[in-house]
């Protein structure tokens, strides 16, 4: 009789976890003394999403991740990971994380360290699979304190996924990697995401967010400034840029053209920021403005990011 209860209880717990959102942060604030690092953050991440967390230095990215991991407690608001407290989620091996800092300990070989990490999790990944994913085969016998920056990042990645966690939190995972290891890293990351795991990563590299995230959250001054898919954001905030040279540009006010939000003029070089490139180019052709060497580029996150920071600085 008691066995039945244990079994059904276990099932109830597991199915509850399956129904919950991966991350629920409601109205989170965190201050350190007089500094408000995070200010009323509201964020829900569904199972299976890959979310990039972007923002300038000091925007509150690391503080947010530390709170999601239970390393810091919010000053106010509540955080749930699969419906439970962050610290409990860690104890249940539901969350894995890769942190920015942290020198490796001395005297332990990579292989021995993986054995240790695997043995403390209830349902770890197979050791060979883990070494495949993180690319550790050739350094299995090296000591942890004698690894290069990129190699120790790979060990930290293995450490994060060893317990096969449902949610993976990565704080600037590729910061110590060269171009080649960065590409390999994201390939591993993608296969981990494809297996249905939820991933939240903070990054400085906008191209990483564009390439790997299904959703981008930009925080600025401890608040969410932008939240959406890359396509949404590009449409809503990025638009397109139309660049050309013109000898008589000073006669024209390009903001009168359809779709143009603003423009820049540098000598004869004009950059129009437009939300509707088709209408803008038609207006340009029918206008009497002279133009040469026209290129149209998709607005990228970098531009959005820059305009956001400038806006913040102006306030």
């Amino acid at each position, binding site marked *: 009789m008691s066995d039945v209860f244990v079994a059904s209880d276990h099932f109830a717990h597991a199915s509850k976890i399956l129904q919950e959102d991966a991350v629920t942060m409601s109205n989170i604030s965190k201050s350190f003394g007089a500094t408000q690092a995070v200010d009323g953050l509201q964020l829900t991440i569904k199972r299976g999403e890959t979310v990039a967390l972007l923002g300038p230095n000091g925007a509150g990215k690391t503080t947010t991740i*530390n709170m999601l*991991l*239970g*390393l*810091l407690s919010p000053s106010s608001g509540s955080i749930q990971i699969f419906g439970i407290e962050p610290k409990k989620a*860690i*104890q*249940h*091996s539901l*969350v*894995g*994380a890769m*942190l920015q*800092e*942290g*020198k*490796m*300990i*001395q*005297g*332990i070989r990579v292989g*021995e*360290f993986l054995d*240790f*990490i695997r*043995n*403390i*999790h*209830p349902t770890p990944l197979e050791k060979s699979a883990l070494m495949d994913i993180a690319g550790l085969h050739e350094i299995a016998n090296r000591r942890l304190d004698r690894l290069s920056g990129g190699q120790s990042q790979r060990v*930290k990645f293995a*450490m994060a996924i060893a*317990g096969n966690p449902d949610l993976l939190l990565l704080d600037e995972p590729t910061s110590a990697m060269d171009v080649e290891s960065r590409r390999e890293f994201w390939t591993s990351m993608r296969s981990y995401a494809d297996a249905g795991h939820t991933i939240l990563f903070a990054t400085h590299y906008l191209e990483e967010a564009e390439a790997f995230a299904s959703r981008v959250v930009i925080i600025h001054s401890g608040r969410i400034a932008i939240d959406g898919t890359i396509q949404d954001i590009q449409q809503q905030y990025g638009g397109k840029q139309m660049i050309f040279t013109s000898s008589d540009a000073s006669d024209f006010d390009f903001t009168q053209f359809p779709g143009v939000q603003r423009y820049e003029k540098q000598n004869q070089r004009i950059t129009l920021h437009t939300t509707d490139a088709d209408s803008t180019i038609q207006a340009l052709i029918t206008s009497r403005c002279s133009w040469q060497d026209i290129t149209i580029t998709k607005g990228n996150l970098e531009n959005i990011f820059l305009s956001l920071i400038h806006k913040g600085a102006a306030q």
Partner: protein
Amino acid sequence: MKEYIRLESLRTVRDPLYSTIAVIAPIGFYLLFAGLFGSSPHEPGTLSGNIEIMVSMAVFGGIWSCLVATSPRIAFERSNGWTKHLQLLPIPLRSILIGRMIVAIVFALPAMILVYLTAVIAHGVSLPAHLWIAMALLMWIGVWPFAILGVVLGYLTNSEASFGVTFGIYQVISALGGLWVPPAILPESILRIGKLLPTYQAANLGWHIANNQFPTWYSAWILLMWAVIFAIIVILMAPKATKIQ
């Protein structure tokens, strides 16, 4: 905790600060001092130099084993963010701390036994079996408080200062506690301080037993008092020492 104990044990086995200072140095010093002063005649009822120095050096090695597996590692991990990584593992920090102290005291035992073996082989020291066992066991327990002291020092220092501070304190309390110079020739004023130290009292357990006497309760109380003081400091400091900035 079992897994963590295995990990820390590997670190200790490979730690040159353990093998040189806790294992090789006490044996070397024993051979040196026992060779110089060990066989001089002693008054009836007192210990021969061979045995007295054996006890001192065993305690000296055992203490360092307790300190080296705790203080420098804790300080390094706190300074370099490793403590943060440990908090992301499904093991409570308390188990990690206890596992670390267990490794520290377990590795004190071989360091101490090697000094006894050196005394037997090099200077033919012999004691009845029951005295060997009682002495080795009680002296081993006598160095346990130093594992807690190591945690205190690990919390108080950063990775740069830890080794120097720990080694310095180790040398000072060893000297004041009569491990370097036989207590009989220490000045009375220093000996009065020395007798309040856990270094002196851990060795005093061994000096009594080797002389076929019961150790004094005073030794036990002093060691227990220091263990409790260190433990209270650890409990008070732990929340702040492991906090993430």
